[in-house]
């Protein structure tokens, strides 16, 4: 399973521009040397993936790579074959001599892949054996990103293939400090964060994923307009769009500042502001039916998308999401049915 990429060419849809074209001779075979530079192409690729463009196929060839001029004493790092994960790792290793073992995670990042089991004990052991890494490094130690620990049992790897697993820091950027500190991570390096820049970075892909449902809903409102007034007015679609943006963009941005823990409730509270704003301003002439439907439907829309954001966060648990859904889904359904009936009855009255 040696890397089949070579000489900077693109093979089987895998990205390979980061290869320097140089190889290093080792007892485990020839290993391609990668650049630690982050170019405008990488920036563009990251940006595209953030917007959902080619995101599920943004991958590098699994296998072994070299950074600098490593030898048998150089550290060995394991990573995922999602290009964004790989970029973080190779950039962090700038100026160092190291080995990178890229596991085949199907182009999924380390944490999600560890949860799915692809960044896991079996895959790691298989790669260590297939790539003959016992011939590559004398220390027989592999540094696994901490977030890989939900898929990798260090004990089992040690027992079965004789490699010790050291769990590195959560963020690749902390690797130089981790190495300097004698391969000890500080408590700070061991914590996931979800600060504003991180929350903002994951919003675009949620926007893209919300698009199809939004277009369908707008189509429904458009149809109601046609039935009602024989034409189109943005008076109904604007509140709906605002509700979507509240759930997908606003709630993630202000997430920790909302004084409730439930994501559904965060969304519903923020979503209530949408009809309040609309009926106080450009929709002040709305009928009682429209007002009632707005207060029923718009918070549900915002709440639903806010609840969906749990998948992008670093601090929600399946048990927590499960409890939220069991309470929220019946309420969503009731409000959606009631709101739709009121809206549609207005058309025929």
């Amino acid at each position, binding site marked *: 399973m040696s890397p089949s990429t070579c000489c900077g060419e693109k093979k089987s849809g895998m990205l390979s521009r980061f290869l320097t074209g140089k190889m290093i001779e080792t007892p485990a075979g020839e290993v391609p040397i990668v650049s630690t530079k982050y170019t405008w192409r990488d920036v563009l690729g990251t940006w595209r993936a953030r917007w959902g463009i080619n995101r599920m196929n943004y991958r590098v060839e699994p296998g072994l790579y070299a950074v600098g001029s490593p030898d048998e004493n150089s550290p060995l790092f394991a990573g995922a074959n999602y290009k964004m994960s790989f970029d973080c790792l190779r950039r962090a290793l700038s100026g160092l001599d190291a080995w990178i073992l890229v596991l085949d995670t199907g182009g999924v990042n380390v944490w999600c892949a560890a*949860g799915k089991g692809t960044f896991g004990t079996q895959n790691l052991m298989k790669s260590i054996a297939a790539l003959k890494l016992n011939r590559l490094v004398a220390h027989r130690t592999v540094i696994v990103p901490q977030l890989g620990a939900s898929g990798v049992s*260090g004990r089992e790897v040690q027992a079965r293939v004789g490699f010790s697993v050291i769990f590195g820091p959560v963020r690749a950027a902390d690797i130089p400090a981790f190495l300097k500190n004698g391969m000890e991570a500080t408590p700070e390096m061991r914590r*996931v964060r979800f600060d504003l820049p991180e929350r903002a970075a994951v919003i675009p892909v949620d926007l893209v994923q919300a698009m199809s449902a939004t277009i369908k809903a707008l189509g429904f409102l458009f149809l109601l307009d046609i039935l009602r007034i024989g034409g189109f007015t943005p008076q109904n679609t604007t509140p709906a769009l605002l509700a979507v943006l509240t759930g997908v963009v606003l709630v993630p941005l202000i997430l920790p500042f909302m004084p409730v823990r439930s994501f559904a409730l965060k969304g519903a509270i923020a979503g209530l502001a949408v009809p309040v704003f609309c009926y106080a301003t450009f929709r002040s002439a709305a009928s009682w039916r429209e007002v009632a439907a707005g207060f029923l439907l718009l918070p549900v829309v915002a709440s639903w998308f806010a*609840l969906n954001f749990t*998948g992008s966060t670093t601090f929600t648990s399946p048990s*927590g999401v*499960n*409890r939220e859904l069991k309470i929220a889904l019946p309420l969503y359904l009731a409000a959606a049915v009631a709101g739709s009936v009121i809206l549609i009855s207005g058309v025929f009255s």
Partner: protein
Amino acid sequence: MKLTAQHLKNVSTLSLDAERCVGCGMCLTVCPRGVLEMRDGRAKVADSDSCIECGACALNCPASALSVHPGAGCAAAVISGLLFGGDGECKCC
């Protein structure tokens, strides 16, 4: 109320059998949420409301002292689990 990056209270399935704990500290190393701490040479669940049930501690505990029902805290995955059974897979990551 204090600024919080925590989800719902009292939902985590994490449990620690203190009798079995050998005090190696591996759970503190792998936990990305600072849920566990060492006290008198043994691990202790100090902040279970921060637990996201990722399963890293249980998988890496050499004494099987920790148990948790692991999964992704993701609405898409949980809905797929509720509808189709199993642990739920999402297509978002």
